[in-house]
């Protein structure tokens, strides 16, 4: 008896979940820590896929929303950063519990996404891409200009006692939980009628409009959803690493998100999960070993990632995941 493809997928997901739950029992502490970070990175990639892959709006400033989430929770937890600045009134705000402040991170990112979306997404075409491309530079400048509050280039620490969990293993499980919940919610959204509207806009905006879809509303909704989860991921990372700083939300991170999405295949949701996971580990683990060559050639890990991205974009614009899943489908059809 053969299973349907859908059932096989469910089995695969459950199987992977069991592996990830058991993984910390066998792996060294440092690697468990890295895997947890990879899970949080996956949230960023999947949320980026919502607006770019599913709705077809090129967002080049996704890391800004990650950053907004991060600084929101960091400042909520350490309001003393406002002391002695023009915003010193804010320093009296009582600190919310960590989980609430992570949620606030998401809400703040979603709010900024809403404002930018309302302005740029009512226009068709390229304005959204152009504006979001400018955002990271402005965001980073912002952090430097008010370095009293944001800690400038160095960033600041939120303190050990505000970590998401005391040890690596605890952090790992919380990161895993956050990823599963976030991806599940986003999965439900893209599978709902709202998700179909997103895709209708991506495939043909004018047609979508003519069958009565309020394209602006759904583009903004998609962007707000995407920004919200980016903010959650950024906020969670702050409590995972206990520090916040601009290097976490810089352009290289944006390119890593893009690369993961492209490798996984835009608009496939699970592809980016896999892409995000692989790219994060690739960048932070395997590529570190390669760095000897930078003595000889003008190459560093970023250069390698950019080259991979260009080559992939040119040879497999649909993403590797889609090739693999087409192949699998054919394989299963033959079998049954």
């Amino acid at each position: 008896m053969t299973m349907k493809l859908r059932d096989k997928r469910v089995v695969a997901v459950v199987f992977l979940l069991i592996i990830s739950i058991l993984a910390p029992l066998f792996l060294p502490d440092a690697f468990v820590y890295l895997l947890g970070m990879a899970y949080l990175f996956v949230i960023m990639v999947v949320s980026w896929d919502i607006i770019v892959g599913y709705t077809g709006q090129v967002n080049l400033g996704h890391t800004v929303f990650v950053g907004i989430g991060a600084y929101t929770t960091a400042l909520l937890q350490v309001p003393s950063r406002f002391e002695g600045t023009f915003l010193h009134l804010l320093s009296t705000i009582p600190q919310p519990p960590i989980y609430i402040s992570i949620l606030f991170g998401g809400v703040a990112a979603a709010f900024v996404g809403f404002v930018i979306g309302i302005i740029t997404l009512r226009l068709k075409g390229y304005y959204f891409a152009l504006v979001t491309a400018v955002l990271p530079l402005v965001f980073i400048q912002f952090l430097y200009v008010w370095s009293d509050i944001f800690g400038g280039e160095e960033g600041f620490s939120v303190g050990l006692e505000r970590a998401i969990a005391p040890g690596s293993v605890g952090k790992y499980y919380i990161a895993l939980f956050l990823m599963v919940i976030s991806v599940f919610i986003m999965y439900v959204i893209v599978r709902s009628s709202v998700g179909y509207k997103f895709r209708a806009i991506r495939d043909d905006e004018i047609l979508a409009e003519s069958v009565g879809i309020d394209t602006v509303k759904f583009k903004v909704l998609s962007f707000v959803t995407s920004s919200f989860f980016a903010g959650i991921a950024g906020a969670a990372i702050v409590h995972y690493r206990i520090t916040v700083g601009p290097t976490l939300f810089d352009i290289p991170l944006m390119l890593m998100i893009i690369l993961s999405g492209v490798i996984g295949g835009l608009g496939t949701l699970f592809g980016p999960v896999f892409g995000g996971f692989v790219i994060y580990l690739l960048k932070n683990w395997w590529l570190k070993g390669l760095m000897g060559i930078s003595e000889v050639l003008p190459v560093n890990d970023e250069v390698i990632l950019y080259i991979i991205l260009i080559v992939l974009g040119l040879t497999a614009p649909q993403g590797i995941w889609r090739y693999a899943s087409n192949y699998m489908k054919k394989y299963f059809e033959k079998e049954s």
Partner: protein
Amino acid sequence: MLELIMKILIYGTVVSGIWALTASGFSLIFGIARILNFAHGTFFVLSAYMSIVLIKNLGLNIFISYAIAVLFVGVLGVVVYKVMMSPIRHHEVMVIIVTLAFALLVEQVLLLLFGEHGRSVPSFVSGFTEIGGVLITYKRIVVFILAIAVIFLLEFFINRTRTGKMITAASQDIEAAMMVGMDVERLFVITMFVSAILAGFAGLLFAQVFAASPIFAVKSLIYAFAIVILGGLGSVRGSIIASFIVGYLITASITFLGARWAEFVMLVTIIGILVFRPTGLFGVEE
């Protein structure tokens, strides 16, 4: 105060000329091929660094080096088009991503090769004069004159030559252009060459006035965005006029607020235009 305003006017004019070249190239290729070339800024920085290498390391004459550098980025523009844009043109998202990745790649390689600090270029004229109480080097004056000269050449090319008219026609209606038998692909290649040359020339002039720095692979692009949105996507004349508005705006904000505010002012400008006049000053409603 009066002196300050004079300074903004004079310095702003020079900067505006440079940005006009950059933005009009960006606008040109968007207008005809509807391609957002995020690699546009690489032509800007590469020509500057190329000229530095030719002058300082190979000891070539400054003008010969400039000619080689500009030609080099022109050819590079065609290569970038053929390799990174033409094959995936219908995958608009991918074109943006791939060209952005290329821009960042070039920026990283330049950072590794030359370091993050700006590199100066030997200037082609020395000395300075005084205009309305503001000291200004001859270099800046020459840069401005050259920029204006190139803008006029561009206007001449687009409006008076046969190829230029074909480019305009194809920009207005690509399908009609194909129907009357124009080789549109060839026009794209020519436009890309011109567009890259304009950015390359702007980069050289910029390096004369300020310095060459790898971050301009992305920064010059941001300025081009702001200008192009203000002028109206796809309108070359709009871009040129918008460059002067943006040029004065940048110079004023740098004078009054400091250099680190420049990007912020750019963003506010872009957002402001999109709120009040989404099609820009000269944009065509699609």
